[in-house]
């Protein structure tokens, strides 16, 4: 019994489908839960996800969304999630839902930033933190800055490498991308980020994202590896 997810981009072997069982889903959801905590989410908070149901940002959010997932990020952190899909046309609905529910953090697909900026010209929302996600891409710094200005909130980037079930998120304190060494192995391959999940070691992947490993430690996670990812 497994979950079969059609991916946004094909895997290195050409397949567009990823097969995930309870063990993979559990490890992957733990990474999302760590991202949530890094974004400041705590027990009792509400979090909105503006992405498709096929995105790990959505389906790992709660065991209520995903078959074969025992505990989603919401159950690990103690939050209540609300999803609002990944298309630009539902931004007006998202704005109303944010006004009613007042989530502390909103996760969104990178391509929703421009329509969201448009909508924010007419509305002021009190979201503390926005996290902009992208698959094998670093969300543009200019986009993040514009969103921070328009929303008055803090804006962080999140990088996914779906082939390796990988997520790393920017830290508000040091601005580097934090990676959890108990969840992922990370190394450099010809100047680019390479990674493999410890919960599914065969899924190693060499990305096209140039990186630099940041020395020293950040108080948000003294044991995290920190990456500077270049667009």
């Amino acid at each position, binding site marked *: *019994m*497994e*979950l*079969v*997810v*059609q*991916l*946004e981009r094909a895997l290195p072997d050409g397949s*567009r*489908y990823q*097969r995930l069982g309870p063990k993979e889903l559990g490890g992957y959801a733990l990474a999302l839960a760590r991202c949530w905590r890094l974004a400041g989410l705590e027990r009792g908070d*509400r979090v909105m*996800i503006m992405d*498709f*149901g*096929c995105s790990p940002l*959505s*389906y790992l*959010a*709660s*065991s*209520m*969304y*995903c*078959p*074969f997932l025992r505990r*989603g990020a*919401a*159950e690990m952190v103690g939050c*209540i*999630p*609300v*999803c*609002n*899909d*990944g*298309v630009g046309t539902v931004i007006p*609905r998202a704005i*109303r*839902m944010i006004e*009613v*529910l*007042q989530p502390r953090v909103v996760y969104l697909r990178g391509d929703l930033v421009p329509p969201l900026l448009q909508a924010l010209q007419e509305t002021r929302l009190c979201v503390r933190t926005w996290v902009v996600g992208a698959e094998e891409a670093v969300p543009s710094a200019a986009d993040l800055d514009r969103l921070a200005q328009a929303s008055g909130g803090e804006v962080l980037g999140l990088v996914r490498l779906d082939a390796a079930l990988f997520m790393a998120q920017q830290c508000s304190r040091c601005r580097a991308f934090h990676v959890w060494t108990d969840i992922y192995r990370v190394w450099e391959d010809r100047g680019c980020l390479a990674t493999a999940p410890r919960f599914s070691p065969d899924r190693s992947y060499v990305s096209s994202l140039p990186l630099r490993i940041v020395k020293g430690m950040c108080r948000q996670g003294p044991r995290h590896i920190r990456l500077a990812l270049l667009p």
Partner: protein
Amino acid sequence: MAVAEPFDEKDLWPTERLWAMAWRRLKRVLGHAYQRLPFYRKRFEAADITPDDIRTPSDLARLPLLTKAEVLALQAQGEAPFFGMEWWARQEPSVFLLSSGTVGTALLWEPWSKMWRRSLACARAYWHMGLRPGMKALIVAPSWHLVSLLDRMVFELIIPCEAVIVPWGTHLPLYAGPLLDTILDQRPHFVNMFLPMLYALLAECRLRGVDPKEAFSSFRTLGVTGAGMTLKAWQELDKVVGEGKLLEGYGHAEAVVSNGCRERLGHHLMLESAYVEVVDPQSGTPLPPGKRGLIVSTVLIPQGSLYIRFAPGDIGELLPEPCPCGLPWPLIEVYGRIEDQVQVGHLTLLPYDVRTCLDEVQELVAVSGAVVRRRVPLPYLEVLMERPPGANVSALEQRIKEVIGRELGLEVKIYWAQALPARWKGTPVIEEEELRNV
């Protein structure tokens, strides 16, 4: 006739026993809401009743109907995230669902245990639609939608599937491409999706030169929801996708779960999770089976967001005859939305009624036709038809007049247009001003 493969013993109960079960649960929910939920306490007090005053189904008329507009107003002013109509018994996972619609989007707070109990009703519906353990099932509904949560529970925990497949994108017709790829690559057996997506998939098949029967050949069940289909439209579509697999369900996020039956057009109501009434739209009084009215439902699981006597605006009727399939769960048929009603002479019609007549003229089965609504009703029906290429219009007109006269007892005036605007596809209602623009 007894049902061949019952889901459990309730499938063998007489219908009266199922209604009695739903009534007991309804009474419990009313008591719970009165005792514990401020929003409903106020409604009972404003109506000057207590749950003890509701002794028979007709007493329900004393409790006002709940509309989406009221819920939206409550949620716009309330103290997030709870608004006085929610209840939770213990700490457990929960999510907010969205219920979108013509008047706006409402939030529903749904804890795990409630979703589990609603899933049991959904699993029964899916079982009768043909889902069996070991199948491959598709989830097309987005995460914010009730169907996605029900699918998640049923496909893993109640009728365990070999694989649960999630296509890229979302349920909107724009994403038919990746969905068709997924269907062709993964060969699923079961899906419950929205009717516009099925039409978009058929268009995608045409575009790629793929025979829909081939594309959908792996499916045992193609479930669709989200529109009142006429018998003819259903039969025609069933032929296109490969006969015997298309089933039309009816439901909404707030309460109702039902399954389309292979025997006839109508939906078996799963009364274990929702009490359903059909009421007079003016008085709110429950109507007997066979009478058309407003569909009203109450969720029977007193957890999460509680909707009591909720009227989503659908018009339908409880069908009086037992279903030939043998299932004792009562049948409901849904004809359309209250805002689409048109007054003609002494009749209140829905586009469904006109479509049923037009469907009797074979050349018009797939042809769009709009029903005209006048501010001051006329004694005769007016229909704006798209002119089928090469058709003998006067012969068609004669046959339309015959069938409308026979079935509805009305005279009809027909206007022909070269093409109707894309937004009028199907059988829409148009206002008299719009007639001039065609």
